[in-house]
């Protein structure tokens, strides 16, 4: 029976960690919706998540759209369905690749930076100092980041969708020899609102996850520079896994028959 003990310990540890995360998320959300709001800090986080992620998100979307057009062309040519390229590219980008790749890229950039910043504040007692200066760290540190993540990711995904489709268009016109008017017609005529909306809902959830994991791991880091380093890594890894898992769950919710 002894071999069950370690399994039990792991399961209990996992449940406890999940519980802590849920409570943390709940606190963060509560402070995000209840006044007072730190507008200046929220604005700064929006800049750092939204504006400064634009170049890397744009490049990712561009190359993804380009390669997508190439591959789908190769695939669809095998049964003479080349005219489907435009439609498949736009659906692939808006439903899946736009939100998921943007989420993963921003997780690498932003969750890591948040965990490093908040983790350093934790180990140098700056978070304790906040408390003694009558400032709630959830309100001051977590809420602005959650709001910024939740609102900026959908905007980034709109940009990624547009640039991704543009990338597919460029490759199709310039190197695959499609007719521009037909390509655009096929892109927009078969696109349904739900394709874009589901992608934006995903983006909001991913933005929340990114900020949540950055803050959570930073808050719970301990043990100096090494602990902050570990928090940074774990923030990116856990945010990425949660993004992929929740992506499946949301897709199921939206499209399962």
């Amino acid at each position, binding site marked *: 029976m002894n071999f069950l003990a370690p399994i039990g310990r792991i399961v209990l540890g996992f449940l406890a960690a999940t519980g802590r995360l849920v409570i943390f998320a709940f606190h963060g959300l509560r402070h995000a919706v209840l006044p007072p709001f730190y507008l200046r800090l929220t604005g700064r986080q929006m800049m750092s998540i939204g504006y400064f992620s634009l170049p890397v998100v744009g490049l990712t979307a561009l190359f993804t759209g380009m390669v997508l057009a190439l591959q789908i062309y190769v695939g669809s040519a095998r049964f003479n369905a080349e005219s489907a390229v435009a439609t498949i590219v736009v659906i692939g980008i808006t439903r899946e690749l736009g939100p998921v790749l943007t989420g993963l890229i921003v997780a690498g950039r932003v969750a890591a930076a948040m965990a490093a*910043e908040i983790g350093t504040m934790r180990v*140098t*007692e700056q978070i*304790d*100092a906040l408390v003694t*200066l*009558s*400032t*709630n760290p959830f309100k001051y540190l977590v809420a602005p980041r959650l709001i910024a993540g939740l609102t900026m990711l959908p905007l980034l995904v709109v940009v990624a969708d547009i640039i991704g489709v543009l990338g597919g268009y460029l490759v199709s016109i310039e190197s695959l020899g499609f007719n521009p008017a037909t390509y655009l017609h096929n892109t927009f005529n078969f696109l349904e609102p739900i394709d874009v909306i589901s992608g934006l809902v995903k983006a909001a959830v991913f933005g929340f996850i990114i900020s949540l994991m950055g803050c959570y791991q930073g808050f719970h880091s301990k043990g100096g520079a090494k602990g902050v380093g570990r928090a940074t890594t774990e923030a990116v890894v856990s945010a990425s896994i949660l993004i992929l898992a929740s992506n499946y769950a949301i897709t199921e919710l939206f499209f399962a028959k």
Partner: protein
Amino acid sequence: MSARIKIGLAGVRKSFGPKRVLDGLDLDVREGESLVVIGGSGTGKSVMLKCILGLLRPERGAITVDGEPVLGMGSDDRERTLRKFGMLFQGSALFDSLKVWENVAFGLIQGRGMKRAEAKPIALGKLAEVGLGPEVGELSPAELSGGMQKRVALARAIAADPEIIFFDEPTTGLDPIMSDVINELIVDSVKRLGATTLSITHDMASARKIADRIAMIHKGRIVWIGTAAEIDHSGNPYVDQFIHGRAEGPIKMEVLRP
């Protein structure tokens, strides 16, 4: 002097894993007094302050501030209680994303909702009190020396004129002259503002200067408490060893000798 108890600790116990840091600690801080706690490194002095502030939760015991029990307080009550406090952290704990003057003004702006333009002159005034000019106010904390950071942290602790001020090693890392300036400042805060202060120090000169009473902590308990005048003939072997800085005595430093 009034003998009202401002802060009371009774039987406070705090452990980290198997390690018991505070072990039934009893201590009363009277209103308007300057109490200095001395004791070896790692005996739980900073942990004691953090327990009072609610930054750490003791497993056992009771802590009161103005007669109100603070353990298990709701968040609103706790926030109200914390407004009475100013704290100088041992490691300064300055916010490195903010300028020096914004650090000093933080409690005024964020904690009390004061306008930035109104808080800035107050912050610069507090900086001047710790011997730092207005040009320092525009720097970021990373651009300061350790001793300057400590003085900024001190200015931040006293900026909102709190009723109770904790100083965790206020003079460590300062030159003797600046130490004396800081000692004067602490004495002055007590006299002029009528604040209650609880300070931690290893510096006996500083302790003698600022203390009304001195308490010695060892192995998570208070082993001696008395007035500053009594400390030289306390008859307590722990105190004698500490104030004379002897390696031999009842306090065994955990040093591995070859």
